């Protein structure tokens, strides 16, 4: 296969201005396929050239041919990649080197060949001229349409169409409401899924998403949910509006599930419980309520790390967000001492968030004794606990056990807020069933709180979606179906068993590292302890997709892929070929010149070089 990249400024010179067409392209002669890219207007030609090479490499990586040769007409770009000029410092060059390294590490052959641009092979030059033509057409169209109004004066002066836009380098002042909207950062987890979908490796594994999968890697609809849905259909219910606070029966069943049947709190009417749009929506209601009414210090303290969405939810609600220590990277376990020290330093009358069980993303929970101690300190410091319970029953398979922390705090007399989600324990992800509760000091207070919660919901979405809540109600109010919450036990047990299998297989691979945290952690997620470099490598070289913090979703692990996964993890944590924290780091931001140089030499030793290999 021969692939040629090129930068495609349409008449050979750099253009400024928003609509100028600085671009990059590559072409694959073997299948007559090419792609073009548009770059930011302030990109230099050199950047465009490097960008084209990088895109070409990514393309090659996606196809994985045994031998590829890249033909290129920019000598300066090739020279800087091969290091003839100076140690690389440009991020693009480093990225290119990484891609090459990754390709070579997998045993693919890769060569570069400089070619004078006027001797471009035929199909390739055809492609270039097609791209150039398209650019010209675009500019012509623009000239024809816009110059009728906005640039009439210019049209009058010049008469004929120019080869380059007249507004090159001029800021575009045309009225549009959105031109200053900047691109928001992509969602890290979503990005992982996208990359996974593109990968063609049959052995690929997606460990990014937090949704349960069965042992065949397929989504799982709980048998009890199916039964509940059948019963609901038989009832032929209407689709009338739910009250603002949602279904009262649903709310009642939810708080009883959390606190245990016959709870004094519910009996005495001390809870204000409202149906929310699953966990996130409930958190948002809680955040908004506290931002408005919390009489103390309006700051929420989150564990480090916490679920990524906690911070934006509370910030959008109008609360300040701060942290307390939680996870210890050395032990991959709970930092009990650190937590207590930090909690003791939190200003009195602040809000503190706890994951009720199955901490996301670490899977690390305090044990009952530690919870008791935390409760003590929280009371001493007069902090206000906010419990997020997204995995009740899913962690241990036992709803009461998973609610230990919440129930203990209630028993100790804390007032608190609590959010519940049925996404995981009933597999109702997309149906958005959840609940928000505030446990108040008196019945009167709970009622007043309820009235204010409704005022928060009404101008947010008016009233909640009912389908999921009806399913939950059907299950929790039916003794037979509730007993079948054994479904959740089945899910929990599968997760617990793959944790053990992963640990065993790592041992079989001969790993010397301590992997006991894999089985000590609980719930959907496991913090493997892989550093960002290792996480990246395990993705690149083994098609195992996970977030950069080393978090894997245990739901993506099955009895079929666990061996391969263990092998991959062992390879990146053990093999000398992979850069450990002590070695040179190929990440873009943290590179020092020396480290880069070493890394780069290593790449060259592996056979990468300017014009070394040729396809005739």
């Amino acid at each position, binding site marked *: 296969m021969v692939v040629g990249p090129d930068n495609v400024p349409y008449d050979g010179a750099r253009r400024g201005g928003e609509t100028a067409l600085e671009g990059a392209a590559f072409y694959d002669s073997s299948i007559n396929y090419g792609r073009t890219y548009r770059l930011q207007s302030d990109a230099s030609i050199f950047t465009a050239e490097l960008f084209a090479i990088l895109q070409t490499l990514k393309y090659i990586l996606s196809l994985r041919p045994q031998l590829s040769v890249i033909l290129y007409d920019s000598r300066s770009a090739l020279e800087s990649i091969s290091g003839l000029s100076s140690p690389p410092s440009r991020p693009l060059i480093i990225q290119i080197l990484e891609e090459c390294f990754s390709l070579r590490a997998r045993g693919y052959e890769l060569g570069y060949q400089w070619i004078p641009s006027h001797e471009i092979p035929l199909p390739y030059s055809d492609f270039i001229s097609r791209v150039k033509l398209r650019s010209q057409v675009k500019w012509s169209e623009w000239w024809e349409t816009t110059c009728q109004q906005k640039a009439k004066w210019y049209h009058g002066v010049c008469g004929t169409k120019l080869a380059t836009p007249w507004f090159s380098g001029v800021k575009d002042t045309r009225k549009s*409401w959105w031109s200053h909207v900047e691109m928001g950062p992509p969602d890290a987890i979503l990005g992982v899924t996208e990359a996974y979908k593109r990968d063609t490796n049959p052995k690929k594994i997606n460990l990014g998403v937090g949704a349960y999968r069965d042992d065949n890697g397929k989504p799982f609809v709980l048998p009890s949910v199916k039964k509940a849905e059948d019963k609901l259909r038989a009832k032929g219910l209407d689709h009338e*509006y739910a009250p603002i606070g949602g279904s009262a029966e649903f709310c009642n069943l939810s708080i009883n599930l959390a606190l245990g049947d016959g709870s004094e709190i519910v009996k005495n009417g001390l809870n204000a419980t409202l149906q929310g749009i699953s966990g*996130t929506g409930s958190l948002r209601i809680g955040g908004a309520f506290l931002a408005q009414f919390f*009489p103390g210090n309006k700051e929420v303290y989150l564990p480090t790390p916490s679920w990524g969405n906690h911070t934006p939810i509370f910030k959008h609600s109008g609360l300040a967000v701060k942290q307390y220590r939680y996870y210890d990277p050395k032990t991959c376990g709970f930092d009990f001492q650190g937590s207590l020290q930090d909690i003791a330093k939190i200003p009195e009358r602040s809000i503190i968030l706890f994951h009720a069980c199955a901490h996301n993303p670490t899977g690390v929970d305090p044990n009952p004794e530690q919870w008791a101690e935390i409760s003590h300190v929280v009371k001493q410091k007069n902090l206000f606990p906010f419990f997020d319970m997204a995995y009740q029953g899913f962690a241990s398979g036992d709803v009461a056990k998973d609610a230990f922390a919440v129930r203990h705090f209630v028993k100790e007399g804390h*007032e608190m807020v609590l959010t519940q989600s049925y996404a995981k324990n009933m597999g109702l992800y997309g149906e958005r069933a959840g609940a928000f509760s505030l446990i*108040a000091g008196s019945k009167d207070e709970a009622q007043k709180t309820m009235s204010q919660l409704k005022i928060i919901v*009404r*101008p947010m979405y008016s009233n909640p979606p009912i389908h999921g809540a009806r399913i939950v109600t059907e299950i929790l109010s039916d003794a037979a179906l509730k007993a079948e919450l054994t479904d959740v036990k089945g899910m929990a047990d599968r997760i617990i068993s793959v944790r053990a299998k992963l640990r065993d297989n790592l041992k079989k691979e001969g790993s010397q590292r301590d992997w006991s945290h894999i089985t000590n952690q609980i719930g959907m997620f496991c913090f493997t302890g892989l550093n960002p470099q290792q996480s990246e490598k395990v993705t690149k070289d083994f098609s195992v997709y996970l977030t950069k913090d080393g978090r894997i979703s245990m739901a993506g692990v099955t009895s079929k892929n666990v061996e391969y996964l263990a092998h991959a993890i062992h390879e990146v944590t053990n093999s000398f070929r992979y850069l450990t924290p002590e070695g040179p780091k190929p990440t873009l931001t943290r590179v020092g010149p020396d480290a880069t140089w070493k890394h780069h030499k290593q790449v060259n030793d592996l056979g990468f070089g300017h014009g070394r290999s040729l396809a005739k």
Partner: protein
Amino acid sequence: MSTRFSKVRLGPPIQTFALNQECVDDAHPQKVNLTIGAYRTDEGEPWVLPVVRKTEMQMAADEKLNHEYLPVLGLESFSSAATSLLLGADNAAILEGRAFGVQTVSGSGAIRVGAEFLARHVLHYGTFYTSSPTFINHALLFLSAGFVEHREYKYWDDNRRTLDLEGYLESLREAPENSVVVLHACAHNPTGCDPTHEQWEKIADVIEERNLFPFFDTAYQGFASGDLDDDAWAVRHFVNRGMELVCAQSFSKNFGLYNERAGNLTIVLKDKKHLEAVKSQITLTVRGMYSNPPNHGGRIVATILNNPQLKEEWKESIRTMANHILSLRSSLKERLQRLGTPGTWDHITSQIGMFSYTGLTRQQVDHLKEHYHIYMLPSGRISMCGINSSNIEYLSQSIHNTVLLYPNNERKHKL
């Protein structure tokens, strides 16, 4: 232990819901509930559209469906079908790829997301205009989303019981640049009175001239006139003029999916190069509010809109509902005219959609509630859906008696 929330005061009840509750609790056998905007059959019962039932059955039988998360911006097949329904599938904005939809928690959720996007994170718009009178929740939605200044444009001429176009345009001419103007695409809530095509053109002129930003709300597409295209005329007119806008769509009424919360936010841009950036910002807004929208209602709507046969059945149901309401309007008007009730009642049939602004005074409304157990909003807004063949006689006679007892001019003396 000292209690933390003792300072929380009891919030005021939400008017519509409170009145509805009052009516539900009323034991009078002839009570009439005209408060809530949800369709009722002639027997006064909620109506699940046959095509919705059928689709739900099909979905239940489909083993491939599951309850997995939808994307943050919702089901793609839903949002693109919703946007096409609004703009027309062959609309230039769609063909040029500069219009897109976001699945939301029904119409209210769409307004909240749209308003939060405009106010809080990016554009920092602070002033919004709603019609006077307006759907109460509009003001609350915008203020909670971060808007700071609420102004009203004139809309309803109380004496002539019709649109006050001159006042309308005058208020818009005085609006500061970049103000967001909330427009009801059809079946204005609560007056039921819509601008004509010519009037819409004039409104669009001023909005364009003053560089205001149009924010449409359409909760009744197809439900108002029985014709999906007619009811979308105003939005399409703005888009065809090349204006940028957002539009909140609800499928509560026209699909009868009130409690499934199926809605869409359509965004039309001038240039598709800003599309990805706008999408990314809306993603952030949604992620911090409820993460991703509810699946069930969205899937029902998507299934129906993307299947030509089901879509035809749905259109048939919409016509049934629209015609039922139109016939209620004319029969209420006829009865009042036959009784010789003082005042003109032509506005009952010239108004459109679920609601009618009767023009009854506060005193008359109170009397109707206390004496006849007929519940409506203090503004005199009635939901046409609360009327049926068994209560229309009682209702018209009660209105007649009340207007005779408290003549309209008495109110003018007080003013």
